[in-house]
């Protein structure tokens, strides 16, 4: 067994990989939350349900329609994004002018309803989704065994997060989004269709959760409560990173996954609470979050 200074390297790298994979999902989900919060100023409690919806949509697409993983990876985020667009137009828009607490409660209600519906139809035990053929197997590295699909999760989510970051920070479309986040009314006066931008942004943020759901289907069991379990941690991560920071959401997501993985190795008892501990410390030292701007 490979050891270094008494540390079991197989175990350590194994937990690091698990952490990185969890972190990939944290990053995708908190990125979507951050984008939506930036422009709409609402906290989308349904983000976890949209992630669950993405996983179920992939499962149903495969089992009912014969749509394979790769096609689902493109179609499901679009479908979940479209569901988000409907949700924004029909439910959130009518109360957008009220206190944001109402839309928070609304999205929470939507999450509970979706979760309840899926539990009613599919039960809560969870369903399996096979790893696509091309990504089965793994690579034997000197210090660990790396399953191909797990490597793919990390690479794909970093690519998607990176592309999203680039689009928001470096393109003209992203400049609209950043400016709209700061002063939507002035953007409107410049002749930019802000309501449309809000709808598309919500659809995109929710679509990211749908993408994460498809990615998750082969590694976690597809179950109605998969989103609510994850979302609590993702909220803590958003608080740690700082609300509304795009790069912050991505880095904190990945970072906290790694922190969680390391804790699992060195002190497993604390692994499920370490993120909340970090949250408390960050809130005490830097209330706006690691990457947030002080108001």
């Amino acid at each position, binding site marked *: 067994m490979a050891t270094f200074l008494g540390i079991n390297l197989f175990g350590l790298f194994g937990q690091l990989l698990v952490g990185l994979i969890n972190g990939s999902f944290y990053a995708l989900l908190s990125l979507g939350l951050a984008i939506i919060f930036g422009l709409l100023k609402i906290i989308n409690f349904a983000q976890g349900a949209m992630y669950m919806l993405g996983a179920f949509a992939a499962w149903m697409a495969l089992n009912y329609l014969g749509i394979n993983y790769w096609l689902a990876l493109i179609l499901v985020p679009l479908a979940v994004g479209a569901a988000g667009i409907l949700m924004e137009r029909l439910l959130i828009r009518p109360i957008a002018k009220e206190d944001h607490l109402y839309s928070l409660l609304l999205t929470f209600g939507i999450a509970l309803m979706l979760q309840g519906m899926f539990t009613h139809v599919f039960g809560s035990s969870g369903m399996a989704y096979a790893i696509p053929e091309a990504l089965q197997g793994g690579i034997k590295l000197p210090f660990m065994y790396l399953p191909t699909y797990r490597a793919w999760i990390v690479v794909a989510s970093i690519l998607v997060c990176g592309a999203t970051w680039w689009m928001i920070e470096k393109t*003209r479309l992203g*400049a609209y989004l*950043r*400016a709209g986040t*700061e002063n939507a009314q002035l953007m409107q*006066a*410049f*002749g*930019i269709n802000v*309501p449309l931008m809000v709808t598309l942004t919500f659809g995109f943020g929710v679509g990211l959760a749908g993408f994460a759901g498809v990615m998750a289907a082969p590694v976690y069991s597809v179950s109605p409560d998969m989103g609510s379990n994850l979302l609590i941690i993702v909220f803590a991560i958003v608080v740690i990173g700082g609300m509304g920071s795009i790069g912050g959401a991505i880095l904190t997501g990945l970072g906290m996954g790694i922190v969680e993985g390391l804790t699992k190795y060195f002190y497993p008892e604390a692994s499920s609470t370490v993120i909340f501990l970090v949250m408390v410390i960050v809130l005490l030292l830097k209330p706006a979050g690691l990457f947030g701007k002080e108001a």
Partner: protein
Amino acid sequence: MSTSGREKIRISDLHAFYGESHILHGIDLSIHQGELVTLLGRNGSGRSTTLRAIMGMVGRRSGSIMVNGSETLNLAPHRIAHLGLGYCPEERGIFSSLNVEENLMLPPAVRSDGMSVEELYEMFPNLYERRFSQGTRLSGGEQQMLALARILRTGANILLLDEITEGLAPVIVQKLAQVLLKLKERGLTILLVEQNFRFAAPIADRHYVMEHGHIVEEVHAHELEAKTDLLNTYLGV
């Protein structure tokens, strides 16, 4: 009243509200092509609200606001600018998450013959030098230049400018006066909310004086001397 040139803005019986507050109480005014018209008055008299009402940025409006011959009262706010309007808010509205060049390029073109970026950098060389700085890192004067340059690039030919000289050094105020005269020569129409009467008097064609959400006086440039006392009473200078 000047009748030369086309009417670019005609406002009739405009009332505007923020929530329950009734701010404008029946405004009538008109501006012709190539005119530079000011809205004078004390703070809170409704001058900024008049500009915001034109841009659709108030809670509720009634009456009529014609821009280039089209009624805008029932137009979605994001369509109003596309009638050729460029708005420069009192707080300048420079975006801190965008650099200078991104700020400059942000507003979409509303007409086809806007000034080119090269022309604007020539007019405001400081902006070129600092084009990669964060927008809000600029000095107040530079931010004002940027706010102005930003709407000139869109091709807007009716400019609504809110307190553009506020808090700026005299030499920058002078530069702004030159720029406005240059724009007027190009045939642009300008509605200026201004506190600094000494800045506005030499460059404006007409002045409307506002008080408590009403227009209480209209003064043509050639009447200024005769009506100085009256203006002093209204403006409290």
